[in-house]
């Protein structure tokens, strides 16, 4: 058996793909390895519940807000409080800002080079630099849209990276009128950018038909939070699981009881666990989370423009779930648009300026689970504490972990379609990376990564000998 080792770049952190060939030269198996480890779950033990939002926000510099909010929700559960309504609205506002900035980073900075310049383009130009040379407006739009999302975070939290703003019981400072007006003033431009990007994607879809067909296009389950009325949700509500036919497999699942329906398998070749839907077993219980799953699970978005876009998205697979992981990009753009609409709604709610933003309480439960939708998918923080609020046990399940089985399936599908003979073409490498990138995995989050994978390709023979090695820059 031969192995092709392919480092993955332009994702949050670095991974490695090995393609395992049989003696007949055909793809037998492909694996997306996560080879880095940090161990936040261990070193948070011994800290207090009050420190957890700020501590776990350090898991990732890209999505600290997701961990901050989820951790605060787990803290709410330990305090056994319902936070004030304005505090929930403010947390929602920050999470929507996070969705906008993270999705903008994924689409404009990381993925647009592939989409705009093609997977076979020279790697020297197939980056955002090449995009800027080709389409200056698109590059600037990406910068401005991401800056808008980050500004929301900064206005609410006092800073854009690692704001220690959400706390168990609520948030530690309200939104000022001046802050609200600053966000509102920039909303129209953000809306224009989101609509332009969506129109661009929809107009270009036909040119990506082959990639859409083979970038992780397979039946699976999908899981996401939905509101009690079935509409799109990112902060509260219940978990729903649908299948590839968009039939509801499970609904109204209490997120706090996730161990009853989510199992976590371990493979010796990856530090990233393999969550699965327990009733279906491992690995048949493979499910996807994130933008694609959220759109497949919800019945409507709940805002005008996003719902119009959602109906066009649904038309890709009438009556069924959209199963092509390539369309994570499409779902991401629709979510940006809908998130901006929801930001507009929140800004016009007078309660958003209320100063009643925190419930005070002591330790009332010895266990707490926080679940919400991070940009990349469902995020779970589960803490066990002692009577004084000192952490005794931590379990984190992040979106990249939920998608682990699907990402492995995706690289296998891409290798099966584009690998021909023993030649590792630039086009194959780029598509393998692109297939993974569609999920926008965050390895910093998933294993809390340190260090970087070397950028190399290694061809290993049947006896494990290295047949060829290839290196390229980050």
């Amino acid at each position: 058996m031969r192995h092709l080792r392919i480092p993955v770049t332009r994702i949050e952190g670095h991974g490695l793909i090995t393609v395992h060939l049989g003696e007949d030269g055909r793809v037998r198996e492909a694996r997306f390895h996560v080879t880095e480890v940090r161990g936040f779950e261990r070193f948070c033990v011994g800290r207090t519940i009050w420190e957890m939002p700020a501590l776990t926000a350090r898991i990732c510099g890209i999505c600290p807000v997701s961990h901050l909010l989820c951790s605060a929700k787990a803290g709410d559960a330990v305090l056994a409080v319902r936070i004030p309504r304005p505090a929930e609205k403010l947390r929602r506002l920050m999470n929507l800002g996070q969705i906008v900035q993270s999705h903008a980073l994924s689409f404009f900075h990381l993925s647009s080079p592939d989409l705009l310049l093609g997977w076979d383009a020279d790697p020297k130009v197939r980056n955002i630099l090449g995009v800027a040379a080709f389409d200056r407006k698109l590059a600037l739009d990406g910068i401005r849209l991401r800056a808008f999302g980050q500004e929301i975070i900064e206005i609410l939290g006092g800073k854009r990276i690692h704001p220690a703003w959400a706390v168990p019981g609520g948030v530690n400072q309200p939104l000022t009128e001046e802050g609200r007006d600053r966000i509102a003033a920039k909303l129209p431009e953000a809306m224009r950018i989101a609509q332009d990007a969506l129109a661009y994607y929809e107009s270009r879809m036909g040119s990506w038909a082959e990639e859409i067909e083979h970038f992780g296009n397979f039946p699976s389950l999908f899981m996401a939070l939905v509101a009690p009325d079935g509409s799109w949700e990112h902060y509260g509500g219940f978990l729903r699981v649908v299948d590839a036919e968009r039939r509801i497999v499970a609904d109204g699942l209490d997120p706090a009881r996730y161990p009853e329906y989510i199992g976590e398998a371990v493979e010796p070749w990856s530090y990233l666990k393999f969550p699965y839907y327990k009733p279906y077993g491992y690995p048949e219980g493979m499910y996807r989370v994130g933008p694609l799953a959220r759109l497949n699970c919800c019945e409507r978005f709940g805002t005008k423009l996003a719902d119009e876009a959602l109906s066009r998205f649904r038309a890709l697979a009438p009556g069924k779930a959209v199963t092509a992981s390539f369309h994570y990009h499409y779902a991401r753009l629709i979510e940006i648009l809908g998130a901006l609409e929801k930001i507009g709604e929140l800004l016009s709610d007078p309660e958003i300026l209320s100063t009643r933003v925190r419930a005070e309480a002591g330790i009332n439960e010895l266990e707490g689970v926080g679940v919400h939708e991070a940009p990349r998918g469902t995020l779970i923080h589960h803490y066990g504490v002692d009577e004084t609020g000192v952490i005794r046990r931590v379990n984190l399940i992040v979106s990249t972990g939920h998608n682990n089985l699907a990402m492995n399936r995706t690289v296998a599908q891409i290798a099966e379609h584009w690998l021909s003979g023993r030649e590792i073409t630039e086009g194959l490498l780029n598509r393998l990376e692109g297939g993974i990138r569609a999920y926008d995995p965050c390895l910093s989050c998933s294993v809390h990564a340190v260090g970087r994978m070397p950028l190399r390709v290694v061809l290993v023979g049947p006896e494990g000998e290295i047949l060829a090695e290839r290196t390229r820059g980050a």
Partner: protein
Amino acid sequence: MILVIGLGHPLRRDDGVGLWIAQNLEEREGVKVLGAQELTPELIPQLAAADLVIFVDARHGAGPVRWERVKPGPTPPLTHTLPPQGLLSWTARLFGSAPEAWLVTVPARDFSLGEGFSPRTRLAAEALLRRLRAYLGGEE
């Protein structure tokens, strides 16, 4: 408009000196002050709107506070973090021109985990803060 960007990590002792400058330097008419852990692409439009940019960062080693003129360098990939030269070159590429820019570095030697500066960095930072206040206040 003069834009001051203080860089650093608040939990890496002397590394946080640029951030400390940004936190302690007052904004005034025509002067905007930002603190950041890294130079990210979102700063590009703000650079484009500035006439003069002053980056303040820690510099490993001894010696005085250094002022160095920086100009647009090679245009690096637009990722999460950019050097001052890269940020300037992206500004020039996307907006047609880049502002005059200076990189001010403060000597630093303790980059261990924690808060607070080593004595030499503390003295240098306080002196730089006084000088920037005087300069930005029009006294120099």
